[in-house]
């Protein structure tokens, strides 16, 4: 039930000495007793108790069955059985108090809640596990400043590190992004803006490529680039393999966001005498920019963690090699793959630390991309906002200064601000 804060209208006397709307009316008309607010919706105590009861009851029953009655054991089976018993128990408890439809509704709600929680728990577990295992090696600065040249199998954790892999990953990802993004966006523009009879086969092909097994991308570059053309295994070859993986993802995502740009904007551009390419460049792409950034980030996130294409094309080395075009170059996934299978605990610890580094790297990429291009169309950068504030303030100050001299105020304000906007320097992205 909603409670209204307004006093009842009928309580104020019509034609009385107090005009309606004056301060005294609410005081007069105020109800004698304070009204209690009733919270609407939300979770009731009943709901909480039902869930808690079902949880405890099913746990007890499960323990009894699992540990005493049935010949089962193991934590995983225990959890699965507990969950199933919980759903059954919740259904039974619900059936005691609610109707059939209501119980079904609640059951679905509980099931979807728990699957959501499961996903979150899995992610937290995954990140937490890698972080806790990786911390051992990552807490030492040398992990980020040294490579593995001088590190033997039994060297302590304070020697050696993943600098070569971090540099290799960044370079390979950078090169792959450099290739994949222009190609992907160009393909997306072709499919959505140019269209024609070829657009459909291209789209089908791109969709098929998103499902391309990553090892095949590696084999392709290995077969064509390294075996046929005779180039050596290098970071550059790896970045080509990553490009094959990233391009379809960038293309698909970019096409979706380009299609979301309203057709009325294209019409407006054409009506101003814009050609198709100028329309794409000046109207469509800037409008779709936040979505395009997401597309790029999606592609990069896919590329940075790929192991198998890199495995076949870059070659493993423990040396530091900053040149992606010559000699083998290791990257983080390859580093992890190589060291985690070794029988030395320090090596495994380094591999986990590299895994942690990889996750942090992806996080940094996401944040950077959001900051760089994730603004909504038309939203201002912080610099632009500051500049506008500054202009407004200086215009105000000028107006204030001019006022005592007897000038008409609005005119002064206008000239001052017109002056301010005339001296404004256009920012990149604004012109």
């Amino acid at each position, binding site marked *: 039930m909603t409670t209204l804060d307004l006093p009842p209208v009928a309580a104020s006397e019509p034609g009385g000495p107090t005009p309606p709307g004056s301060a005294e009316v609410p005081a007069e008309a105020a109800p004698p007793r304070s009204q209690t607010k009733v919270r609407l919706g939300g979770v009731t105590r009943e709901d909480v108790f039902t869930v808690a009861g079902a949880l405890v009851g099913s746990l007890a029953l499960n323990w009894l069955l699992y540990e005493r009655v049935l010949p089962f054991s193991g934590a995983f089976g225990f959890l699965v059985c507990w969950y199933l018993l919980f759903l059954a128990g919740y259904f039974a408890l619900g059936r005691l108090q609610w109707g059939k439809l209501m119980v079904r509704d609640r059951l679905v709600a509980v099931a979807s809640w728990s699957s959501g929680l499961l996903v979150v728990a899995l992610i937290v577990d995954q990140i937490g596990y890698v972080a806790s295992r990786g911390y051992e090696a990552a807490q030492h600065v040398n992990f980020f400043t040294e490579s593995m040249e001088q590190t033997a199998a039994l060297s302590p954790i304070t020697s050696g590190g993943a600098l070569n892999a971090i540099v290799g990953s960044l370079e390979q990802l950078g090169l792959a992004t450099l290739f994949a993004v222009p190609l992907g966006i160009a393909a997306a523009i072709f499919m959505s803006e140019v269209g024609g009879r070829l657009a459909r086969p291209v789209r089908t092909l791109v969709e098929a490529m998103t499902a391309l097994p990553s090892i095949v991308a590696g084999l392709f570059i290995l077969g064509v680039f390294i075996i046929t053309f005779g180039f050596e295994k290098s970071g550059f070859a790896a970045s080509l393999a990553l490009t094959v993986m990233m391009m379809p993802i960038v293309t698909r995502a970019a096409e979706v966001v380009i299609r979301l740009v309203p057709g009325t904007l294209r019409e*407006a551009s*054409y009506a101003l*005498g814009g050609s198709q390419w100028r329309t794409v460049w000046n109207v469509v792409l*800037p*409008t779709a920019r936040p979505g395009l950034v997401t597309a790029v980030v999606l592609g990069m996130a896919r590329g940075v963690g790929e192991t198998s294409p890199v495995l076949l094309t870059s070659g493993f080395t423990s040396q530091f090699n900053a040149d992606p075009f010559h000699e083998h170059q290791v990257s983080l996934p390859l580093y992890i793959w190589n060291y985690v299978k070794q029988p030395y605990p320090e090596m495994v610890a380094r591999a986990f630390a590299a895994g942690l580094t990889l996750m942090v790297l992806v996080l940094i990429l996401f944040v950077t991309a959001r900051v760089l291009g994730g603004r909504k169309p*038309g939203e201002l950068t912080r610099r632009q906002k500051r500049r506008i504030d500054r202009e407004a303030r200086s*215009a105000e100050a000028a107006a204030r200064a001019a006022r005592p001299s007897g000038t008409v105020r609005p005119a002064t304000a206008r000239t001052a601000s017109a002056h301010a906007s005339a001296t404004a320097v256009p920012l990149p992205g604004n012109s």
Partner: protein
Amino acid sequence: MTDAPMTDTPMTGVATADALAIDPAADTLTLPPLPPGAHPGGGPLAGLETRDVSAWFGTHKVLERVSLAMPAGEVTALIGPSGCGKSTYLRILNRMHEMVRGAALAGEVLLEGDDVYRPGRRPAEVRRRIGMVFQRPNPFPAMSIQDNVASGLKLAGIKVSKDERQDLVETSLRRAGLWDEVHTRLHTPGGALSGGQQQRLCIARSLAVSPDILLMDEPCSALDPTSTRRVEETIAELRGRLTIVIVTHNMQQAQRVSQTCAFFLATHDTPGRIVEAGPTAQIFGSPRDQRTSDYVNGRFG
């Protein structure tokens, strides 16, 4: 200047002097000098004329032999019930018709006596001379107010100095009657304005490329009455400076803003055609055709 040979209404030529006489009376601000290449206010104005224009979408014929002269410097209103082809006709005038797949056309559209559909004539060039304002305001969301106004230059690939650009932005916004409301926030996004302001921003954007003709496709149908009045004032101020063709569903609006009026009508099996065209006063005061009389008096449509 085209001598628009209109069959039933010999009224070209009166317009320019008339409009200039009206202009000072309207509460316009004194305009700064126009940027180079702009259409000078009192200079030669271009009229538009169509001869036997028929249009199809695929096999469906939507317009049948429409001949109409839109006198230079005047406001021509196209009225008629929905689906009578007046918007299609408007889009034919600046070659936006051909953006629709399967669109076809017959007849001539003469801008200063030169067919805009002449083979070899580029649509972009035609559209730069014949601007268009759409039914729903559509400022570019990724651009600020001033970038929106100057977007026509960018889209046409015209390079101007910063000062010229600034002047052009101010002139265009003043002509669209928007300058006083936005001059302190030219860097803010155009999408943050109210609907009426957005529509006037779109008008300013069209004016910035100094077109000879401005087409307006129900420019006020998405606006509230106050914004509608401001847009109508803007149209009144622009009269005499360029030729305006406006499609409207609002009879009063057609009566208020236009000097010439054309009534379109289509039935189930016949494509749209002009039933009657002439001076607005005549169309609304003493229409010759019974159907026009019925329509303008609100008896159908």
